[in-house]
């Protein structure tokens, strides 16, 4: 279980990085259609992965933090804790 969680978080990090880098590229190449297609594709994948991660583990963003019994956003681990914390 622990491994699946770390693997999914790693994958979200990889796709997230693709989007960060692409968004800067698109800021200076606003008419590059191939880059936009690439962006749209990975943006959808990231959204899907974040939804899955939020349902199984904890919300990574506030818009995935809907809660009933306990405030899931507040209970979530913080990124600086690290795996060995």
């Amino acid at each position, binding site marked *: 279980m622990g491994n699946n969680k770390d693997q999914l978080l790693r994958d979200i990090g990889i796709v997230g990085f693709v989007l960060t*880098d692409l*968004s800067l*590229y698109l*800021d200076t190449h606003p008419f590059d259609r191939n880059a936009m297609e690439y962006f749209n594709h990975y943006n959808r994948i990231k959204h899907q992965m974040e939804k899955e991660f939020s349902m199984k583990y904890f919300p990574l963003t506030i818009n995935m933090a809907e809660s009933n019994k306990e405030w899931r956003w507040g209970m979530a681990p913080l990124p600086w804790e690290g795996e*060995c914390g």
Partner: protein
Amino acid sequence: MWNYEKRLEFPVNIKEPNAKLAQVIISQYGGPDGEMGASMRYLSQRYSMPDRNVAGLLTDIGTEELAHLEMVATIVHQLTRNLSMEEIEKSGFAPYYVDHTVGVWPQAASGFPFTAAQFQVTGDPVTDLTEDLAAEQKARTTYDNILRLIKEPDVCEPIKFLRAREIVHFQRFGEALRMTQDKLDGKNFYAFNPAFDRCKDCDDKPDCGCNN
């Protein structure tokens, strides 16, 4: 406004505390070419950019610098948590410890506190973008200097990632400077400050590139 993601831009998982490394790496938190200065510089300069795409780029790079600030803080935090008193005394960490325990405070490696005097906002787009190009190279040099001081792979990997991002940002700022100059007078980019002056062509050419 901003949204927060509860993850780092690049993973940081440091196993062994090491106060010596923390003392040099903290310079990229609050030092003269660190991530705090970088993010504040770009997020403050963006208001006087006449080109909307360039102002957007400064917003996005300034935002990524905040993610880098968090990575550097995480490295410092993980290098200093679980330090023994003996390690604090042996590693020369005592002067920092006496003021901040093992909290993360923005300072240069020399102990000099973070200050806005480390960057400029001139309100002149060509000048500010030229400073941004230099800022990315200065940060890259600092990361190169840090990499000569460390061998530990769990510290090196995130530092190498941050170093590579400086080079990408430099590339994007070069494009942003060109985009800004493309809308200025090609014979004299310095004829007027497009964020302040009213240019000669304003009245007969609405697309003259100035802000008025």
